């Protein structure tokens, strides 16, 4: 830390001493964190999910287009096949 002009040397020393004492002071609560193995496992799971999400993303993106294309194909098929179906029914009946 560089000496700061708006603090006197004694004040600067006091601040440093205070921060040192704060660093050395006992914590009123210990950290509650998983051990490294659990964290690694968690990270691997997240990595796996991310990879799966990346793989699924193009499929999910294309889904609306697929639905639209299927619906359009169904309409066209119906449009083309209905007249011939009527012809076929007529031939069958008469």
């Amino acid at each position, binding site marked *: 830390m560089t000496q700061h002009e708006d603090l006197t040397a004694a004040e600067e020393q006091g601040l440093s001493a205070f921060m040192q004492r704060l660093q050395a*002071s*006992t914590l009123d609560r210990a950290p509650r964190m998983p051990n490294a193995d659990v*964290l690694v496992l968690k990270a691997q799971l997240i990595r796996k999910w991310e990879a799966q999400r990346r793989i699924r993303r193009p499929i999910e993106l294309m889904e609306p287009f697929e639905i639209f294309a299927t619906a359009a194909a169904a309409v066209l098929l119906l449009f083309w096949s209905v007249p011939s179906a009527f012809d076929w029914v007529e031939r069958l009946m008469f």
Partner: protein
Amino acid sequence: MLTEHAFGEFYQRHARAVWTYVYRSTNNAADADDIVQEAFLRLFQTDLLPSDEEGLRRYVFRIAGNLMTDRWRKRTREERHGAALSEQSSVSPRDLDVARTFAELKPRDRALLWLAYVEGGSHADIAESLRLGRDSVKVMLSRARLRLRDLLKARGLIEGKLE
């Protein structure tokens, strides 16, 4: 990317220091647990990392700082100052007094002072850690020091009385 073994060792060595920094800055132990866990998870998932231990340490402090900044932005002022230090017999009254004095500062001031005095970070390191401009760090750190000085003076804890 770190190997599992390297990550495990690095975590063992530095998790507590990062936790203490986050805890002293947020004044909330549960937040510190979450933030530190998230910071180390992100570290483990990052592809391009500094190759040296000190660089990695600075990197994880930076992630933790960024996560704290995100939380501060989300929360209201009341929530920020809401958590109080618990009364526990394991902590000496003197330590509790020191912690309480520090807790009176704003969270960002606490983070700035911790990074500057305890971690010995440069203005550039602090700026990156807390997503601030370098010039802003100079000004904000200067103000934080003045606020801490005033607080210590008001409590009669400055000018040799700490020793």
